[in-house]
């Protein structure tokens, strides 16, 4: 990964530079027009968030059962990345909603679910920051529970209400829209991967530094 990091960063930068051109060339959606184009960044940011959520949950479980500190650091990095992409989704969503539904926020199933998962992982970061000694295990439990909670939140709010466009529209996208969409998904996933490695690397170095300080004392 270390060798590939710089070329991949350049590739990601190039993809994000080219993405607006592809999006501008994509056809207008018949009812929503220009505002629908936010979809090319909105949906991929959720994809990236859920990837980070699952990385965080799985690495937390590895940390808890195998006691591998490196897994904990990767989980921490993933937790931060999840919240970051979650905020991107929560900013782009209301912008789209304001234009197409007329309101900033709707108590719709997928919005509520996204907000709840986001809250769980903000809670995770709060525990890590303010939980005091031993909070790494606490946070790991929070991440595992948060990951297993995703289907329950999904089911409960889905039955509760739904006005969001169903996710089944994605496989049915016409090619003119599908190509820029999947291009954006790839760009976001790459960005997610790069940020994750970078953030985890920082945590590894910090841990190594702490170990050196301890040795000195």
């Amino acid at each position: 990964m270390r060798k590939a990091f710089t070329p991949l960063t350049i590739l990601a930068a190039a993809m994000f530079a080219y993405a607006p051109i592809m999006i501008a060339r994509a056809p207008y959606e018949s009812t929503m027009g220009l505002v629908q184009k936010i979809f090319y960044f909105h949906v991929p940011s959720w994809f990236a968030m859920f990837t980070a959520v699952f990385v965080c949950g799985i690495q937390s479980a590895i940390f808890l059962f195998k006691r591998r500190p490196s897994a904990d650091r990767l989980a921490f990095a993933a937790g931060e990345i999840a919240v970051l992409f979650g905020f991107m989704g929560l900013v782009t969503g209301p912008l789209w909603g304001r234009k197409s539904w007329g309101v900033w926020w709707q108590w719709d199933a997928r919005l509520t679910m996204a907000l709840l998962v986001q809250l769980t992982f903000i809670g995770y970061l709060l525990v890590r920051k303010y939980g005091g000694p031993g909070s790494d295990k606490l946070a790991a439990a929070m991440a595992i529970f948060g990951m297993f909670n995703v289907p329950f939140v999904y089911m409960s709010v889905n039955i509760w209400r739904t006005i969001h466009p169903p996710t089944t529209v994605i496989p049915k996208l016409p090619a003119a829209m599908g190509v820029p969409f999947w291009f954006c998904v790839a760009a976001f996933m790459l960005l997610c991967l790069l940020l994750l490695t970078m953030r985890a690397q920082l945590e590894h170095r910090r841990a190594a530094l702490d170990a050196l300080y301890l040795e000195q004392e």
Partner: protein
Amino acid sequence: MFRRVALLVLRKDVAIEVKSLEVVSTTLFFAVSCVLVFAFALVRDGSVVVDAAAGILWIAIAFSGTLALGRTFERERYAETLRALLLAPAPRAAIYVGKLLGIVLLLGVAELMLVPLVSLLFSTPFFARPLLFVGLLLTGTVGFAAVGTLFAAMLVRSRTRDIMLPILLYPITVPVIIAGVRGTAALLAETPDEPAALMWIALLASFDVVFVTLALWTFEPLMTE
């Protein structure tokens, strides 16, 4: 062995509680104040907003449940009795189950008072379908307590436990609250919607199974120092 340990832990908690009545009385008082505060917010011109009673009942359960969880484990902290419990040559999971049963029992007592109170104050026929309603209460309480007991036990050692418990607990138990409120509201509708209530009970039951299993699975590594 497993069952005996769990029942012993439960018996210990019940004995302490019966003697002091500390958690039961404070939890009940808090639950009643909760109901009153919500009544001021949701009663307009003498009548209640639709479905408000279901919401008030479950919010009171969740809030007073958090308080009870905090208090129960605070007691274990005073003389480091939780550490003593964990040092005992007994399966850790059994200790968790014993604690869980204690919390469920405590919340059950609180609900025994809360349900008639809400029913009286808001004239809601909770017991039009008694079996379904009790099923909702039971599965909901177990789900809330399963997550709460684990988190409260972990937080015993943390300095910031008072603030951390709600932060950890509410986002995770939101499905319980949604299912509890919507299921109860379905039963309170003019013509009780039994299939809807059953569906919510099924969701709650699966939540219970998943989260009790997860808690049993993670209790051991989480409580090891």
